[in-house]
Structure formats: C-alpha cells, structure tokens
C-alpha cells in the first residue's frame, strides 16, 4: 500500500498495449491483454514501470 507522486511537464500522451495477464480500466472502458489504448504520458510511464502495459509510442 503506497502512494507514488511524480511531477513532470510536457510529456505527450502515449499509445500503449496491455500486457499478458493484465487488465486496465480507463475512462470507463475495460481493456485486456493485447488491447491498445491511449494514456496520459506520465500515467503510461508509471504503468509501464509496474509492468501493466508496453508503451508503443508518443501520440502527437
């Protein structure tokens, strides 16, 4: 049980794919392994560090 706070600026949104075995819910949509979605950049980075998603690239 922990809270991780991180400050940044100008990190673009990122296109990600949900990793095997993981589920993600974003904007009231459920995503399963292999599904692609767009997340705010810092959120995507944190979720990649937690091994939930793979970042495919920036969304310009």
């Amino acid at each position, binding site marked *: *049980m*922990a*809270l*991780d*706070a*991180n*400050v*940044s*600026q*100008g*990190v673009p949104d990122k296109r990600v794919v949900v*990793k095997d*075995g*993981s*589920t*993600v*819910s*974003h*904007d*009231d949509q459920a995503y399963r392994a292999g599904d692609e979605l767009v*997340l*705010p*950049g*810092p*959120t995507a*980075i*944190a*979720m*990649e*560090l*937690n*091994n*939930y*998603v793979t970042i495919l690239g920036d969304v310009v």
Partner: protein
Amino acid sequence: MIHDLLEEVGSKNHVQAVVYRARAVGGRVTHDRGDPLDAYATLAQAPMLVIQDKLRMLAGKRPIYLPEAFRRVGGELVSVTPNLRTTVGIDYVATQLGGVSSATPAKYIAVSNNTNAPAAANTATNTTNTRICWGTASATDAAASTSRGEYTALGVARAAATYAHTGSATSFTQTITFTASGACTSLQCAGLFDNSAQNNGTLFCENTYTATSLATNDQLQIAWTLNI
C-alpha cells in the same frame, strides 16, 4: 532509455554460472579468457526498479533507481509514502466484498494542500481543521494550511484514475495524471474516493507526499498501489 539501470539491477538478482573451456595450445592446456560479466550480463524488467527501491527504503536508504528512471523521461519523483486506509474505508471494503456493493468503485483521486496528517477517522465530508478538509471546496489557489480543502479547479480537480491489475497479483493500482491550468501551491495530500464529486462519497484512503507546487502545464502523476 533506462537500459543501464535495468542491467545494474539485473546484476544484483540472479545466479551467474560461468564456464572456462580448456583447450590445448602448443601442447599445454590453457583456458579461454574473457569478461564473464559482459558475456553473461542479465537485464531486469522495469518493475524490478520499484522493488529494488522498496528494499532500499525498508533498509532506511533513499530510493535511487526509480527517481533516475523518472528523471530520464522528464519527470521528478516527489515521494513514495505508505498508505492510510480510513475507518470508513475498511467498512467500504467489507460492504463491497460481502454486502451490497456501491455502483462505483473507489477510483476517483483528489488532491489538496491541507497540512494535516492522514487520519483513520477522516471522511469525505470533513471540514474540521484538525484533519484534511475534503468537505471544503478550494476553487482558487492559496497558501497551504490546516483549513485548506479539496482543489476543485486549476486542472487538479477530482477525477477518475486508470485502474490496472495483473492476474494473481495481490495488489492493483489507480494512476492519474493532473495537468495544472494555473499555479497550485504546495500540493501535499491525496484522497481516493468512490464518488466523482467533491464533498461526496466514501473516503477510502488518504495519504500525504512531499509538498509540491505546480506551475501552469506542470503534470502531477499519482500512482496509488493498493494491496489486497
């Protein structure tokens, strides 16, 4: 971008077996040389950075891998702090699992610059200035104090987080990114609620982090890890 960090952490957590092959050279037996570290280096996965830093912090040392990983992607790790589940949050879990569950999960994150410590007795409607005042709306920025409430504007108003869970893992995360639309002074606490509106719902957990001021367009990312 963080390959060397993963390699360094990977080198701390594996069993390494190296064989030096014998070969005959001019009637004498010699052994191949080489750099076994280069030849057998292993690479950790990104979550190992988190785990390694947790072990460091449990040993009283400062985290080093996670802050560096965030720095390289343009961020700055503000803090990692243990959680506090409120009394009403405990009751909320019991109701969700065994009673009549509410329609919405606890997925809404709010922030404040109230200077009180987290308290198990706190609630979503509290306005008493001995606890974090989630029942008070703060629509404009001001100095941090014991009476400050929940930010309801400036890009940091309560909003739904992104939920993630890996099968069989005994934890899940709620992660959100706020982008400030104006100055926010000394943000230092966060609450996790089951309702999208300020002064409503159940305060499931609350927590504090190192006070951080935001300028316009600064992004504050909060990742809440909850063990189950």
